[in-house]
């Protein structure tokens, strides 16, 4: 069996009377892409937000690398090896690609940047051999953004911004990746590049993929969890899910065509 990196047990998140996530359990293994699908409002993004610490749990337990992170805040969880991207692109728009990715990498430096020792370093000099610079360069190369290093993020296309967001996440050297609709709004060529990148990342990460593009999901996922109204109605291999009658009825049939619209 491959290595279990993240394990969530019976997660519940209530907003008032509404259980947006209800008794959801999910395990993420290194080398696997675990896709979560479901109609809008099924609780996929809420689940992602629970795992990353952006939302506090109502009940349940999450362990990352064997450590309990149920009550940890986003920055602690990030430090413990979980990286995420957002459904709505979430990068530092006025910054260049280099500034975005280098800043993300900087969060891993053991000596904090508010330590006066750092006050006279120049971050614009990318040739300096610091851990942050090296990590940033590697992440930019992996996401094939080298030619855009000095482009300001707000001047990039939507697809490129999504790539940038993944590069920022990778710069923090996570083991677990939570990707919330990385393909949303992408053109065909951009989506193909992203799928290629996800294949590459799968090798040494555990990936949770929330995605509406069903072609991509079935091409990429090793495991599929189907959510409807905050609950898991099925969790299995893609082949078994395709033939699952309950899933067909609840969701998949109609959304396969809807998903195709995205491409």
């Amino acid at each position, binding site marked *: 069996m491959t290595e279990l990196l993240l394990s969530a047990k019976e997660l519940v998140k209530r907003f008032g009377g509404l259980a947006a996530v209800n008794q959801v359990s999910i395990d993420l293994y290194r080398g696997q892409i675990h896709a979560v699908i479901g109609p809008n409002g099924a609780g996929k993004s809420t689940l992602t937000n629970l795992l990353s610490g952006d939302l506090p749990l109502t009940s349940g337990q999450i362990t990352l690398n064997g450590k309990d992170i149920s009550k940890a805040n986003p920055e602690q969880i990030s430090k413990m090896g979980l990286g995420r991207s957002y459904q709505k692109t979430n990068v*530092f728009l006025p910054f260049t690609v280099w500034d975005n990715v280098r800043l993300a990498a*900087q*969060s891993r430096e053991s000596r904090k940047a508010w330590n006066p020792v750092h006050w006279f370093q120049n971050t614009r000099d990318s040739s300096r051999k610091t851990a942050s610079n090296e990590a940033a360069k590697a992440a930019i190369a992996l996401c094939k953004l080298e030619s855009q290093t000095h*482009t300001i993020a707000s001047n990039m*296309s939507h697809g490129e911004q999504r790539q940038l967001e993944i590069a920022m996440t990778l710069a*923090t050297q996570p083991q677990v990746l939570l990707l919330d609709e990385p393909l949303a709004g992408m053109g065909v060529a951009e989506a193909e590049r992203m799928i290629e990148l996800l294949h590459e990342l799968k090798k040494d990460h555990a990936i949770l993929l929330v995605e509406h593009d069903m072609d991509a999901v079935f091409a990429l996922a090793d495991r599929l969890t189907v959510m409807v109204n905050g609950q898991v109605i099925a969790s299995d291999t893609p082949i078994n899910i395709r033939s699952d009658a309950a899933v067909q009825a609840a969701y998949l049939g109609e959304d396969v065509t809807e998903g195709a619209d995205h491409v």
Partner: protein
Amino acid sequence: MSAPKSNLEILPRSVQVGLVFGLIALLAFPFVGSQFYMDMVTRMMIMAIFAMSLDLLQGVTGLVSLGHAAYFGLAGYALAFLTPQNEAVSLWWTLPVSVLASALAAFIIGIFVVRTHGIYFIMVTMAFAQMVFYLFFDNKALGGSDGLYINFKPSTAIAGMTLFDLDNKTTFYYFTLAFVIVVYLFLRRLLWSPFGRALAGIRVNEHRMRAVGFATFSYKLTAFTLAGGLAGLAGYLWGAQSGYINPELMGFHMSAHAIMMIILGGMGNFAGAVVGAFTFEYVLHAFKDLPTIELAGRSIHLGKHWQLWMGSFIVLVVLFAPRGLLGLFSLKSRRNIAANSTKASND
């Protein structure tokens, strides 16, 4: 895609050249200016340091403080308390002690205020500053509403040898100018350091900063403390130059003036704060000097209503130069950046 508000962190060549000419003008001024105007320019430079210190919070980190004058005033009071009635006190230990007093106050108040966001941050910083204001205003032992006199300028003597004489207005002018240059260069360096980038990241998107693993509280607290200390440096110089200190210097108006200076010049690059401070003080002076006119049989003293003219002036600048006076220079360079990146993405 709507362009986000960027802060002109990289200064266009035209601005850099302008700053060099400005520096040359400041260096040459004592040779041509009268004592009165030298005093006035010294005060402008002190305000420039104060504005730069606030810019670290407001322009770089995105924390709009309405109570920054408290830290300005505290260091001035520290100097007043440390200076005996009938002799001068040494600069060499009173300056660091006064600056540290302001920084310490900022650190303690910062622990409470940097937890808050947006409008709450503005209100809480103001509330703390008002508390400090009334502590001094209502307390006779602390000088009360009249404030305190500083009868002697700090002495620079080391082992009986005076290095330079701050009683000399020209010397004090260059002493202050040296601090303007050092603080500017320090903050510009800081802006591009890992710490400065983290502060800018907090301004742009604090949520994202936390998601990539930054404990943003300690960064904001450090910035708040540092800004308080630098405001203290300005307050110390103010006290030393003017020879008195009163609670008004810690008041709401003083904090608001600093905010206006930064908005006037352009936020987040420190050069704007300097330009804004000089412009604000100069325009203030000009408006106060407006003549009395006769209108419909009544005489109206225009200078008395300087706040009205100043308000209109700020409104006009905000309308026509939303990124401050320095922002006007950046239009061309921004187009260049856009053109280059379009070219790059087409390649």
